[in-house]
């Protein structure tokens, strides 16, 4: 691999660091009595919001419909995900230094799988929270579940919910893109015809 390709790979590894600087996903809630809106920020290692107390306010709202309180502690993912990201970053750097195409491919595929698993996991806990409602809930609307949208917009009772990936996710996207690019650019474009030529000579 050429130096600039290694640099691309290095950048791919480093861009995962965005996950520690920005939330991965944001869920926006808006209702008449919340004109300023409520934002839940999902980070790789924590839960937050547009202001302090957002999580508490989410939970206060959710408790009327019997949704279990959302706490950072309820998600083992938040504990081990940072390690996975760090693992990807370190291995990414190593891969960049070694400059082996196959390793680049392997790393990229693994990251894609990791990202997909993350999204799947996220979807599963949305479903879990939205459907596992306390039978003692003060407000029960027959047949109603409260699964927030994974991506996009949905109306839940009087709330408009909007769910979008945030800058942190861009870290993964960039990681895949840059590593993929490094892999693509380092393809043995010159060698291929020569191989073909040798083949023809053999035949």
């Amino acid at each position: 691999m050429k130096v600039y390709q290694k640099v691309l790979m290095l950048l791919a590894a480093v861009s995962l660091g965005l996950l520690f600087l920005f939330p991965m996903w944001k869920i926006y809630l808006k209702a008449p009595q919340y004109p300023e809106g409520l934002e839940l920020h999902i980070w790789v290692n924590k839960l937050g919001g547009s202001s302090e107390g957002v999580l508490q306010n989410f939970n206060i709202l959710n408790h009327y419909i019997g949704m279990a309180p959302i706490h950072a502690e309820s998600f083992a993912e938040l504990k081990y995900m940072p390690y996975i990201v760090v693992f990807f970053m370190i291995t990414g750097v190593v891969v960049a230094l070694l400059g082996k195409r196959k390793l680049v491919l392997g790393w990229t595929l693994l990251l894609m799988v990791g990202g997909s698993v993350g999204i799947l996991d996220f979807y599963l806990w949305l479903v879990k929270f939205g459907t596992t409602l306390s039978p003692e809930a003060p407000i029960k609307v027959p047949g109603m579940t409260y699964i927030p949208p994974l991506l996009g917009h949905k109306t839940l009772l009087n709330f408009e919910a909007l769910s979008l990936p945030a800058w942190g996710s861009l870290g993964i996207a960039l990681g895949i893109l840059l590593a993929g690019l490094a892999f693509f650019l380092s393809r043995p474009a010159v060698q291929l015809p020569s191989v073909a030529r040798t083949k023809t000579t053999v035949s």
Partner: protein
Amino acid sequence: METLVNRFWKSAPKAALLLSLAAGSALQSCNKTGAGEGGGAAAGLDADAASKVYVAPGKHDELYSFLSGGFNGQVSVYGIPSGRLLKIIPVFSQFPENGYGYNEETKAMLQTSHGFIPWDDLHHPKLSRKDGMTDGRWLFVNGNNTPRVARVDLSTFETVEIMEIPNSAGNHCSPYPTNNNEYVLAGTRFSVPLDMKGGTADVSMEDYKDKFRGSISFIKVDQEKGDMELDFQVLVPGFDYDLANGGKGPSNDWVFFTTYNTEKAGTLKELGASQNDRDYLAAINWKLAAKYAAEGKAKEMPANYYHNKLDHGTHSAKSTIKKKVRYLLPEDCPGMMYLLPAPKSPHGIDVDPTGEFMVVNGKLASTLPVFSFSKMMKAIENKQFDGEKNGIPVLKYEAVLQGEVKEPGLGPLHTEFDGKGNAYSTMFVSSEVVKWSLKDLQVKDRMPVYYSPGHLMIPGGDTREPYGKYLVVMNKITKDRFLPTGPELMHSAQLIDISGDKMKMLLDFPTVAEPHYAQGIKADLIAPKSVKFFKLDENSHPQAAKKESDVSVTRKGNVVTVKMTAIRSHLTPDNIEGIQVGDTVNFHVTNLEQDWDVPHGFAVMGANNAETLIMPGATQSLKWIPKKTGVYPFYCTDFCSALHQEMQGYVRVSPKGSSVPISFSTGKKKPVPPAATASLK
């Protein structure tokens, strides 16, 4: 007087025309049946008044205005131009709405050397300043009856400090902040025989002339935090000190006080204090006074006054008793104080935005004199004195006079400025606002107001750059302005557009109790800094329970301490047992919310107290002594959520000496009856 009356009548046809145009009520008011409208629309009503004061639902006003509540001891906050009441801030009075002065945290705010005083007569709101302009940080107000000066923090709109003023009686001429809040000055209205121990002496009224003294207090203000401290006092002759206002620009170092009863009458003052043709405007060089005090000219005397401060971390007030006060005598401090002869019984003193002109509103005088600061300085330099009073030089009237506004109206009380070279004065007796020019001292316009105006306010009207778009005039009598509500009516304020040559009436709105003065400020100097909730993490109240697992009920002798939490929509604990008749039960309720506008209230049946209203993140305490056995409900009083009605609990009170142990709980998980979900389907 003849011409004045003529002038008034000359404008009457115009007024009548507008009157009939405005509401078509001219005829109706002729044969009033009592069932229809009142006395008619205002003269000079702007044809487009409705749209000029209309602030659409959801939109904010352009300005905040802070109106004193007078005898209710509170400040009311109105939006301008809508005239909408935004808030009532309790200062010197207990306020059952939020428990101020009732709950254990704020009782200390109302402590004085005379004991707990849950009321005062709040007269003058004054906004803190920077470079002679209002900065929107604090509001200083005075308590007239039991001399006190308070500070309201405009990030929370809470009273955070109240200081008693020793050697004062009737703290009327107060509180005047200097242009950078170096000092807040407070003068005494009633002079009293000082016993030089911080109190008044047991003296015969016959001795008024010799033994009565007034005081001007110099309250130092912490530039960062706003905390006040009584630096020193100037003991002044035994007149009545009425109002104060400070210089700016060239006169920055000076502050002026109107006086009456320079006759030193001790009885029937309406006559006794109205004999001299001229009383005085007292001019004090506050910088020089501070210098004299710092240089050791100040003497010390024993005192006894309370200084109460609210701590934002603990949400609690604490009282400190101060035992000393320093004082200066004007006779020992040359150049510090002068007296300017002022027309009979002056009321307001107002300094124009340039700092050059001092307008003295002589309420019993027929002219409105305007003094010149530069002439005053020259007169001092040239020693143009007209004798002295108690060792204080009296300047010659002619030497300091810039000129007189002739026939301004009857009973001038107060003047404010528009920043465009005009002054506006209220005329109490002739019930009008008069616009006149500082340039030629000629009357330019007059507008009848309803009725008998006292103070008037132009936002920033006492600063370097007034906001000359609106004028609010505060009227003492309301009569027919609003639907009748028995003998007592709300007072009234009127909003006048002063952006053009002629004043135009825009709006009437009722005011709470009696407003004595107001201050206005552009909303963007305050609104962005407004606190939305207190951070729970920063709550350092000693009895705070910051999470539900921290709650407790403990007994020590016959005192039971309940550490309780409130959150939508339950109190923890909500079942308490083991309380006995005669116990002192202290409920310390912490509001766990971290969301804007979600206070929780807390009230107990039969408590000889108010409720307490707890802001998000704060802790407040309610004291309750149960007198009878039984079960007592307690509940949240501020509608907080769909389940607000359910936010309640019970205390069981057993006989004294009962063996019921202290216990408390909130909910035990119960199995859900299987039928419950089925029945919903």
